[in-house]
């Protein structure tokens, strides 16, 4: 049994963060774990920042992760990884999609964007174990531009030392994907998985944190 394991999903409305949370929580439930999910709905369609908290384990009650107790951060957009740093700490492992979704003032050139290095360095100063991947490019390369969330799901499954099994994640993905998207989602998942497995530091038996 697991006492407490927390996944924080940070995204921009429309990226599929809520779907990702649903898949992970279903996988946890299928493994017989106690689960809590907290999310703020309502602005998901309208370009706002969206966060989902997936909490797993016997000692878990509230829907929101206590400060600093995130086990894994899955960030579908780089700057969103810094939206609520209070939930992160030294022990948090992070997977970050490197493709920015810039707010309009940045696109117009009225505001300057931060570069990826600045963002990732700031994240590493809080949580050193950060894995980056261009999930958008990977999703596009398999003809599934809308599935960058699933690429990140695949990367998470390949992370190693997580309490969710590959099998339960895969079957939760299959259950929650409409039939006509199943093939492209499977490709997105597998490419994300492969990309992560190619990393020297992931998938080993190191203890998280």
């Amino acid at each position, binding site marked *: 049994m697991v*006492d*407490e394991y927390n996944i924080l999903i940070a995204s*921009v409305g*429309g990226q599929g963060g809520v779907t990702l949370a649903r898949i992970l*929580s*279903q996988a946890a*439930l299928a493994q017989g774990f*106690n*689960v*809590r*999910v*907290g*999310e*703020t*709905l*309502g*602005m998901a*369609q*309208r*370009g*706002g*920042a969206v966060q989902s908290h997936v909490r797993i384990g016997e*000692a*878990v*009650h*509230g*829907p*929101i992760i*206590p*400060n*600093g107790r995130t086990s894994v951060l899955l960030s579908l957009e780089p*700057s*969103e990884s*810094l*939206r*609520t*740093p*209070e939930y*992160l*700490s*030294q022990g948090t492992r992070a997977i970050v999609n490197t493709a920015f979704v*810039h*707010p*309009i*003032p*940045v*696109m*117009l*050139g009225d*505001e300057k*964007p*931060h570069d990826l290095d*600045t*963002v990732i360095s*700031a*994240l590493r*100063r*809080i949580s050193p174990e950060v894995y980056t991947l261009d999930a958008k490019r990977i999703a596009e390369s398999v003809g599934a*531009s*809308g599935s960058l969330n699933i690429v990140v799901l695949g990367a998470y499954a390949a992370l190693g030392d997580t309490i969710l099994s590959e099998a339960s994640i895969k079957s939760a993905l299959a259950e929650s994907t409409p039939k006509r998207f199943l093939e492209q989602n499977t490709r997105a998942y597998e490419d994300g998985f492969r990309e992560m497995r190619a990393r020297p530091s992931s998938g080993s038996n190191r203890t998280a944190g």
Partner: protein
Amino acid sequence: MDEVGSLHLIMGNEAVARGTIESGVQFAIGYPGTPSTEALETLSKLAEERGMRVEWAVNEKVAFDIATGISYGGDRCLVTMKSAGLNVALDSLASVAYGDVVGGLVVYVADDPGAHAGMEETDSRLYTQVTMLPMIDVSDPQTSKDAVVAAFDLSEKYKIPILVRSTTRVAHGRAPVRYGKVKAPEKKTPLTRDVSRFTRASAAWVKQQHRVLNERVKAIESEAETSQLNILNLRPGAKLGVIASGISWSYLQDILETHSLEISTFLIGFTNPLPLNLIQRLIESVDKVLVLEELEPFLEHRVRALTHDFGRSVAIIGKMDGTLPRVGEYNYQLVENAVSRLIGRPLSQPDHELEARQNEARKLAPTRSLSFCAGCPHRGTYTALTQAAKELGYGKSDIIVTGDIGCTILGMYPPWSSCWTEVSMGASIGNAIGLKYSGVKTPVVAAIGDSTFFHAGIPPSINVAWRGTPVVIAVLDNGITAMTGHQPSPSTGYAETGKEAKKIKAEDILAAAGISRVHVVDPYDLQASKEAFKEALETEGPSAVILRRDCSLVARRRGALGAPYGVDREGCTGCLLCLRTLSCPAMSVEDEKMEIDEAACAGCGLCAQVCPTDAITQGGK
């Protein structure tokens, strides 16, 4: 699916729906409002297979009145609404508290501490003092289901409506819920004609009904004492206690898992009437008590008074001593700090260095102002209005636009920076009238969505016509209640079941009210919309512009979108006027030129109408 004892990972609102099904309820009615919407939405999807009638009404008062009629007819009914909706239903709710209901009548209301949905942080518990009505507070999805089941039984037994109150974190949080047995529907004998119970038309009857109401609430006290919805854990020898309600209970449980503490705890599920004996047992066993409740110090006031009644001198920690805030929602950290105050030592040490790094990092997350979806017809509306005002020679802040509830208010964000006010459903029109009365010389435009117009925009429109006030009523008609996730409204043309329904047109209502100058335009046609606004802005008396085009999310789902637009990179000069004017999420800038995301584009064509070099075309590249 109905297997008794099976576990389901569902959100609080879905659990309310499940509780309704387990209670053998055949009718559910409400008005959408975050964070309550999914309760009725879930039932609506199950309605056909369960043989239920599940409907959205035009507003919360109408919903409650229909539900009352259903109850009078001998059937059980659930009514759902957000906190602001209870204000609308209050007139009838306070009346029906007097007299009898027949079939069980349960009102589910969801408050929003933290204002996630962007309206007031009203604490609906205070309405129990206005109406006297019983209320159960829920703390997670399981109690949400259980409370609804208990509430239907109580309502029928005591012939009184029962309120079940949730909050955003409970309503939208998911947790495993154990299903119970589904009861078969059971129709009661409908009301018989008895004006002394079903009307308030004589002082003698009303006073008698008031007496009965008091007696009923008193009788429910014993139910509150024994209800499984309260959890009292008295720890032998513990001199410290915590009284909690709602989501605060779960934060407290998280803290107790983290730290081993010698404290007694009490979850109050019954907000009205309170389980006084249980409170007394806790108060008599401790020297110090912490009260955990979001928003107003409702329980804290009562606990303070009761402590005095019980002749105890107990220190009370809560909002009134400044330990906890009345504003915003609670979280683990706030509750941990309060528990630290209770036990007299800090439960955790702040890590200042980590906090400094977190604060630095937070600054790098950009502000994301909300905007209309790709293809949203309101984008055309506010762009046309801005252009019309400019062409008539008005400066940027010459025309006051009173805003209203729903997606339409997003016109307050750049690039339009329209909408000066937002008060409540339908208030844009009354506010506009008042501004004209008080002497505003320039035009005043009331911008209101179709669902909001039908909800509470019709009476003030009649007022406009009646007094001949020169107000421009702009009905942004996207044919649906969009902000809450696309519930049918009278303008939709189909019902919850997908079956065809009568389509009510705003222009017919406005014409019948006596507003003779009504333009109906397509907001995807910038030129026509601009001309309509120009004419309306120059009209001396009342006028209206209906801007009609289906919500693009609905059109996308139906496969009814136009082909996407594309940018000719040769023709694009990179002036970015399209992005600056329309702020469309399908647009981005690549190598200083515009690019349109084909998958995101909804084919509205506004960008092509704005482009000065005709570089944007449908199907173009």
